[in-house]
């Protein structure tokens, strides 16, 4: 449901509740009792559920993640004009949905993965508001990046399964699939965001925003 519709629903529910507060006598009739039940039970809970779902969806958006100042350089890294930058290559070529780029790679594709991602987000908020914020280049992942998150899309893809480098050694693919050989920290795809290490020669693509 669009945000504006949820806002209208919440305001409309509040208006009806206001009518009950001002004129509680209307509950004397049967219709009034039904109205009171709808206004003080069903509508608020429905509105809250829809509102929370709306916020959950919004929290997946790239714009939401980049709305914190500290994430600006990570957003900028999506526009680096260099295909060796993993995040930029995925974002610019729509290998991940551009409007949910951060969430797509940084969620956990296991049971309760979204829930864990939200808990991670709460931790970010805690650090952002109550602790000393690290420099963008000092931000680290909560835990090592699991190949499962890459394989969620790449497993079975021809470029992955039949890629020359992946098949140069017969042990490589099984090790990658078993998460024994990391995609991003074993020297293969280790240039991801590289915030703080761009140097002066890096160029930026101005599309896709």
């Amino acid at each position, binding site marked *: 449901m669009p*945000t504006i519709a*949820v*806002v209208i629903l*919440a*305001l409309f*529910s*509040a208006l009806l*509740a*206001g009518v*009950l*507060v001002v004129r*509680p*006598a*209307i*509950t*004397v009739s049967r219709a009034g*009792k039904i109205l*009171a039940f709808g*206004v*003080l*039970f069903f509508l*608020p*809970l429905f*509105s*809250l559920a829809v*509102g*929370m779902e*709306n*916020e*959950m969806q*919004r*929290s997946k958006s790239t714009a*939401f993640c980049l*709305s*914190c100042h500290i994430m600006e350089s990570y957003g900028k890294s999506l526009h680096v004009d260099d295909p060796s930058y993993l995040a930029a290559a995925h974002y610019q070529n729509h290998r991940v949905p551009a409007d949910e780029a951060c969430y797509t790679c940084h969620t956990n594709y296991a049971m309760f993965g979204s829930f864990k991602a939200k808990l991670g*987000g*709460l931790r*970010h*908020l805690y650090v*952002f*508001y109550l602790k000393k914020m690290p420099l963008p280049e000092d931000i680290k992942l909560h835990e090592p990046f699991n190949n499962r998150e890459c394989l969620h899309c790449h497993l079975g893809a021809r470029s992955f399964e039949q890629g020359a480098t992946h098949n140069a050694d017969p042990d490589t693919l099984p090790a990658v699939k078993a998460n024994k050989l990391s995609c991003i920290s074993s020297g293969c795809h280790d240039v991801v965001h590289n915030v703080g290490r761009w140097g002066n020669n890096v160029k930026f693509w101005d599309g896709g925003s």
Partner: protein
Amino acid sequence: MPPDDFMVRRLRISGILVIFGLLIEAFCLVWSRPIAFVVLVTLGGALIGLGVVFFLHSLISAPPHTTDSPGISLHKQ
């Protein structure tokens, strides 16, 4: 306290709690900041939940009705 006043007062309190919760929800939906989600869940959700629980509790704890007067009651007149 007469039963009517009891219900009227409780209806008003739960209504006010729900109104504040819904207004906070509407505000948070418009306020596009990460903290808005936390405010929505903790403050808005708590007020709405409290209002709903207060309303339900008032339904089951209302004194029996003895007269034809306004107010919700589960008890037959």
